[in-house]
């Protein structure tokens, strides 16, 4: 790709000159892959907006309950968590918050990787690392919420 760029109208081959021209990353050429015809990016974009609105309520509510109301952060203990998770309402709250926050954050990081990683292999491995960490955290958190045993010793 780099050589065709420098062949200008008069036929001079600038590639023969020693000075390297700084090329921007990932230039669009006629060989750029064509559309994949999926709606993945559309759903991703919508998900970020919807989950963002829900997370404002869920996270701020969570912080308010944990840190401000009824005694503040000092009351948070094993017994407090056990008491909360006895109720299906708080189980559902924490589960939804966990999933939305993890997927929202992962999709945001995916966007940042797509924006900043220039080489295809770098992109691929950064995203694999991200997806692995996300799946692990989401599954572990879900497992804990559902199998939490208040009588553990």
């Amino acid at each position, binding site marked *: 790709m780099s050589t065709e760029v420098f062949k200008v109208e008069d036929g001079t081959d600038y590639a023969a000159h020693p000075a390297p021209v700084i090329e921007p990353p990932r230039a*669009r*050429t006629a060989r750029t892959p064509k559309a994949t015809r999926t709606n993945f*990016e559309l759903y991703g974009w919508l998900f970020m907006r919807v989950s963002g609105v829900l997370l404002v309520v869920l996270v701020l509510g969570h912080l308010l309950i944990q840190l401000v109301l009824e005694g503040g952060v000092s009351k948070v203990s094993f017994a407090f968590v056990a008491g909360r998770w006895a109720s299906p309402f708080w189980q559902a709250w924490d589960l939804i918050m966990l999933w939305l926050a993890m997927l929202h954050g992962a999709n945001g990081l995916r966007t940042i990787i797509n924006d900043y990683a220039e080489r295809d292999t770098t992109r691929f491995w950064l995203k694999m690392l991200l997806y692995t960490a996300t799946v692990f955290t989401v599954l572990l958190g879900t497992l804990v919420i559902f199998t939490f045993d208040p009588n553990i010793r």
Partner: protein
Amino acid sequence: MATPTLEKTDEAPADAGHLVTVTFRIRRFNPEEAPDAFWEDFELRIDPKERVLDALHQIKWEQDGTLTFRRSCAHGICGSDAMRINGKNRLACKTLIKDITDIKDGVAAKPVTVEAIKGLTVLKDLVVDMDPFFQAYRDVMPFLITSGNEPTRERLQSSADRERFDDTTKCILCAACTSSCPVFWNDGQYFGPAAIVNAHRFIFDSRDEGGEQRLEILNDRDGVWRCRTTFNCTDACPRGIEVTKAIQEVKRALITRRF
């Protein structure tokens, strides 16, 4: 210098009271001479009501004939001379020196910086390789697509229908918007604002029937969803097109098409 400039005459112009001294700090690059770009200062005596393009002409014609830049019409229509002037993308032929300098006692307080637009390969001085930019433009199919027989007379359209895409017909393809976009700087595979503006011009044209195909193209990985609405493009557009708004309208069309 290697290339000839106008011969200098010793006599000063008769009436030079309106001229001011402005330093132009220009980003120079010549791959045949040196591998690195560098800043070079040129001091000019110039009328502050002149444009930056006039200053570049004066430098090229009187001081250094090797200074390289594009310009064709020199009146803000051809879109050849988009460049980064004082850190902002503008057309050199539409930017008056008095508007971008602070002149005190006939001397500009700060130098005017001029450099090539970002995100595209610099070939020499202020000239960049526009191929990736025009490739993105071609990829959105910027032409009328219709089906059936051609009408014997012109395709009629109501004023309201014409008004719908009026803003995006103003584009002159100068690349000021695309080369001001931080997403494009980092990933040139992104279509960029200019291509989306020109897709918008046909998507919202009531006479056109290819809107569906264009929406499909812009729905992809490198399409409108990469836009971060930083409004750099709207600020940069020398034609005053509301570029970010056009991109958002394409997003909305994609979502309403789906739901």
